[in-house]
């Protein structure tokens, strides 16, 4: 982990929120993406709000701010403000548990209710290493993905480190295309956080 990560210059900063049922491996996905670590037990995620990771896409420095649900998905009590100003959504389910796949609908409904209309969505089927226990077919998942017009459906394994980075890069690429084609003006400096530098993200055009 680069301690200076946060002060590195970047071209774009995107906020990505992670959603999906409890136990599908959201926190593992974040951990794997952030630091390449795989942690079996998830008892101690206390204090983790979001993580920042820089990556380079098409020669641009992209900073991704990935938000975890903080356990509020357990009783489906995610705050509406969690979704505010998200640029991208990663909706994850567990390939070995059909119920988590069926709940993708509920999560996507939340996205359509609480996110901006043009938010980019990515559908992730996690735990693809457990091929024996697989409960949903790839075709089914891809179909659901395209129904909700996700940018892609990707099968991942946080444990084996399969497609984790690729998923986020995919989303970052789409977001970059979206935002670099637009002719953004510097916003008037009238919205602000109260002193923290990690306020919800605005992409800036350089």
């Amino acid at each position, binding site marked *: 982990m680069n301690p200076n990560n946060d002060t590195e210059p970047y071209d774009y900063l995107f906020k990505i929120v992670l959603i999906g049922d409890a136990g599908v491996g959201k926190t593992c996905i974040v951990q794997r993406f952030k630091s390449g670590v795989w942690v079996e037990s998830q008892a101690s995620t*206390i204090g983790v709000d979001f993580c920042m990771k820089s990556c380079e896409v098409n020669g641009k420095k992209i900073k991704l701010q990935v938000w975890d649900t903080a356990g509020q998905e*357990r009783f489906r009590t995610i705050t509406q403000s969690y979704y505010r*100003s998200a*640029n991208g959504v990663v909706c994850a389910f567990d390939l070995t548990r059909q119920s988590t796949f069926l709940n993708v609908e509920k999560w996507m409904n939340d996205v359509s209710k609480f996110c901006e209309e*043009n938010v980019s969505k990515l559908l992730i089927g996690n735990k693809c290493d457990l091929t024996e226990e697989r409960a949903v077919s790839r075709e089914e998942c891809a179909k659901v993905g395209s129904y909700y017009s996700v940018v892609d459906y990707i099968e991942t394994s946080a444990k084996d480190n399969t497609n984790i980075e690729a998923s986020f890069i995919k989303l970052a690429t789409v977001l970059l295309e*979206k935002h670099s084609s637009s002719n953004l003006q510097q916003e008037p400096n009238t919205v602000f956080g*109260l002193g*923290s530098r990690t306020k919800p993200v*605005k992409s800036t055009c350089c």
Partner: protein
Amino acid sequence: MDEVLPEEFDVILIGTGLPESVLSGALSRIGKNVLHVDSNEYYGGSWASFNIKTFDKLMSETQMHQEDNSNPVNLEALISEDEEFLLMSASQQNLSNCQSYCYLSKQPDWVVATNVVEPNVVAEPDEVEISDDKDSPVDVATTAPTMVQKHSDTEDLSCRDVDFEERNNSDNDNEKPGVSDKQSGDPAKEKSTDNDSRNGQVDAFNNATSEEKLENASDQSSQADLPHKETPLFPFYEKFYENWRRFNLDLSPKVMFSRGQLVELLIQSNVCRYLEFRNVTRTLTVLSGENRLQPVPCSRADVFKSKFVTVVEKRILMRFLTLCANFEQHPQEYEAYKDRPFQDFLQSKHLSTKVQHFIIHSIAMVSEQTSTMEGLHATQKFLKSLGRYGSSHAFLCPMYGVGELPQAFSRLSAVFGGTFCLRRRVIGIVADKTSRAVKGVIDSTGQKIKCQHLVLDESHLPDICRSGFKREVSRAIYVTDKSVSPSETEEVSLITLPPVGNFPLYRVIEAGPLCCLSPNNYYVVHALTKPSCVDENAIVDLKETFHSAEKTMFAGTAAELEIANNNESDKQKPAVLWAAYFNMMSCGVNNDSLPGNVYVMSSPGFELGFDKAMNEARRTFEIICPDEEFLPRAPEPEEIVFDDEGYKSENNGNSRENPNEQPEAGNGDYMETEEDLQEEEEPDVQGLIDQEQGVGDHVSDGNGDNA
């Protein structure tokens, strides 16, 4: 949804209003095991913000809101012999006299239905009343057959019209070429581009209406044949509700003093990273005998620029505000007036009636009878906040409404391990018969959950712990077609309408798309007043209560103005397109019947800021955890190291000052140096400044005194 909860917690909190959420965050933050439940399907309780459809529903359903269709719980099996059971109040809604009205006509058939989506609500034209008077036994089903849809428990109240397709139209209208790919969720950028388009649209709109009038005069009969020429004065009902989701209407509108406790806590705890804010950009009032809103000069720059006060008044006002900012150092100035009304003190300082009005109503926000000491403290509090975020602003308001605040603290609580469960009703409290201490609660699924401490919001008090209801605040919310005082850029306004005749004092907050409270071209006006009626059971016509405020601020309702089309009504003033009225109740707490380890958080009241709620949360925290820090700084993500065993917090942040805190302007606008003063001055008032040089000298003298 009926998933079983863990059986034991340190603290259980019921209700997700602001003080409960702050407390929940503070407790989780220091490692307490917290369960936070709410019977509602949304966060925030009496502090929540809703979209306009949900608000309509809320106004129509306050009574049936809490219908309980869960299975009866067998209490005998859950309560042991040495325990007693305190039943929770069945009615948990603390709104009364609720009404909402839409004054817009339905779209006639002749309008070409391009791009128009039929909302799944049916309404009568002109005026739709949805009323549910707690005070009067009105059958809601008969008075309001329209717009009311019974909601199922599983639906999400904050956004339950899932089948309402809205994304394929007017939202896209806002996206101009070149910015159509604008970053999602970037309201500021959206606003900056929309601002232009909005102004353009307004102009076009005005032109259209005047054309239409000509049209009306010359050829009435051909209108039906020429639908494209008939531009109605106001948007149609359907058009209005198209962007229903973009409204964020507060149950308890408030603004934050820039140096109030809430702002300090948000910074200190890092909870501010979940939120964004706007300045309240102007303060308006109506002088007695007038019927026009005027800007109140607050900062020194304002005072210099103001056209409403004379040069002499400016000088005296400046001197007075400088005194107030540092009044403790000059006891001789107010000693004689300590126990006398603030107004007497103001008179003794030779302030004109107009300036007295500004200070009492808009700066100190007290009444004429308030004591001098209280008035001085209130004035100082205002002045301290002035200039912290923007030179002439003293207040902030959260983007998307006040409802974001409890959610942000709830998030903090969840991040630090708090368990959250909405749509879960607690049916009663279990207390020890001998010690009277609470041992736990029983929820509507029949689960008994133990706890050491119990925190309730007022509306969840068991009946026997209550001592009567009273009306706390009377509220009106209006959606209008323009600002109450249009200006070049969109403003966020705080307005005081002083009492006139039989009418009470009103506090008004107006904001719009800039704060994401409404879609473009609409404004939201929140009006509050203290209920005048003593008899709690009397039926109050809230429309009557707010009549005077409405007359001052608005031209009329859209329905009225459509009829009076040819009348040259006050074009400057906005029309009311939608309105809602309600009372917010509060109940007294009967402390004798309340177990010792139960803490009650009060409902939001008439107060403008959040200090009361913050104090309550802090005090309760100090009782539950006497030796712990209240809301220490949460670590930044990069401070958390994780290894193969999982996350570990590197430090809990207590030791480190937030390095990036915004620079702060000392102790408020009136404590600045003369240099700052010169920078602030506008070139076009240079002549005035030359005349006013004495004032500048005086201000710097004041500073010198205190240095």
